[in-house]
């Protein structure tokens, strides 16, 4: 295919039925295999945007193209096969009476054989660190466990495009690490909406910054997510590690801060600190 753009959004606007404007003239393009961070204040419109890309919200105000197909009533079923969503609230995601049934729901619908389905369920549960939870009722789990199962229900479908709304919220740091590592190994095109900028820096190549329903900046995540002034001016904050080290932090982050790495990176860190200091002095 000559066109390797997986997602094209053009002039998308949306107002909720109660009159709250949520998206205003949103435009962007995402190429195959790209990992995109979606950041913005509470209420910026991130979830609303993701709900559009899977056809959950119907809207004729704008134009969305997914893997070459325009998103409309006719194409929605086809597109949903390609797009997996993890909702922000895990209660929106889980509805079967056992964890197994819930994770198997997607693959069964896609028509896989029993063998394959079982295989897929097992693998996905492993990836989120909840092997052995097959027979539990998803409804009777801790909040974080529910969140992990939500991720598993989508992983089991290995969709071409993954939309993740706050995949790491309410996860314990270990679980967060797991999800991050899993996401890094997946080839799918991904959009990740999150307030956990540190994780985003680790996973994503590019970033989209939203404010009050508009896209206000797009670019490489190293540039956008470490730009303290830009973030501040849109109600966000850089993670403290970035505040301290600036964009020198990226290689450290991607190496996951093993104590041994600290040693290896000592030079970078010192350099970063003195650079910062100079800037301080220079600014005054």
């Amino acid at each position, binding site marked *: 295919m000559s066109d390797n753009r997986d997602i094209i959004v053009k002039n998308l606007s949306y107002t909720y039925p109660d009159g709250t404007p949520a998206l205003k003239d949103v435009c962007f393009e995402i190429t195959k295999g790209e990992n995109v961070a979606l950041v913005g204040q509470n209420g910026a419109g991130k979830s609303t945007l993701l709900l559009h890309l899977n056809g959950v919200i119907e809207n004729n105000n704008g134009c969305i193209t997914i893997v070459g197909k325009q998103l409309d009533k006719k194409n929605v079923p086809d597109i949903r096969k390609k797009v997996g969503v993890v909702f922000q609230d895990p209660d929106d995601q889980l509805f079967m009476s056992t964890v197994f049934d819930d994770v198997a729901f997607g693959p069964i619908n896609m028509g896989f054989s029993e063998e394959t389905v079982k295989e897929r369920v097992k693998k996905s549960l492993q990836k989120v660190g909840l092997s052995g939870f097959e027979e539990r009722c998803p409804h009777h789990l801790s909040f974080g466990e529910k969140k992990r199962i939500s991720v598993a*229900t989508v992983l089991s479908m290995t969709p071409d495009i993954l939309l993740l709304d706050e995949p790491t919220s309410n996860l314990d740091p270990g679980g967060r690490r797991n999800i991050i590592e899993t996401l890094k190994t997946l080839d799918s095109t991904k959009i990740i909406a999150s307030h956990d900028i540190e994780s985003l820096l680790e996973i994503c190549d590019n970033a989209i910054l939203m404010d009050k329903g508009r896209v206000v900046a797009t670019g490489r995540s190293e540039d956008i997510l470490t730009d303290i002034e830009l973030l501040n001016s849109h109600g966000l904050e850089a993670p403290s590690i970035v505040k301290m080290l600036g964009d020198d932090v990226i290689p450290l982050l991607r190496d996951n801060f093993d104590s041994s790495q600290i040693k290896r990176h000592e030079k970078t860190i010192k350099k970063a600190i003195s650079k910062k200091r100079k800037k301080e002095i220079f600014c005054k």
Partner: protein
Amino acid sequence: MTHFDIDKYAYLKSPFHNFDPRAKVLCFLLLIFSIVLLNDIRVLLIAFISTIILVLISKIPLLFILKRFKWVALFIFAVLVVLPFTVPGENAFYIGFLSVSHSGILLATRVSLKAFSVMLLIFPMLSTMKFVIFIKTLEHFKIPDKLVQMISFIYRYIFVVSNEFQRTLRSVSSRNVGKKTRIFRHHILSNIIGMTLVRSYERGERIRIAMLSRGYNGNMKTLNSFRMTKKDLIKCSIIIIWSISLHVIVLTKILDLARVVNSV
């Protein structure tokens, strides 16, 4: 996530919006019962027109009322379609080979007039106050405590249930791809409803706790307190007198008199 628009127009300003809720409910109930007890089709027409005037005064948007019509409309539609053909009586005219009876049309009209009047009256009565206020009003009427508590919980839970239902639907549809057999679909539907019930049940329980932990002790408190004013008394009297006069018109046969006078 629908909120059913229950309190949507409780914030407007009209003579009914600042009517004492207790008096308002009683007066309107009286009017409703009085209209249902009417049989003279001409008086019913007068009552119907007066109902429309009351609705207009309440400033509730007509579009909103029309949307709600679909529920009654179903029943009325059935009545209108069926009765004229099935009620035996003097023939009025034919549609195709079906005969339409005089008394059928009359009955259908009477039934629809009553049904529509009542449904219209509910708007100035209830859409002009917040539902919480209605619940408080019930407390004033000495309705059994258990019932009042149930109503206020039901009111809360309606939203819980419909929210949970829509959420379940949403999650199913986002992963529901490919073709399924009938059996599978029925299985899914009972699952969805069952899960909605369980979720609502648990969510409802947690919300109850949240209410308790914020000082809820069985009655919904809001910032309003009721006061009867002179204006309320006047409004009351108007509605009560009107309800009674509808029947006075029938009893004294004023309308028939008019015809007699005319023919003379």
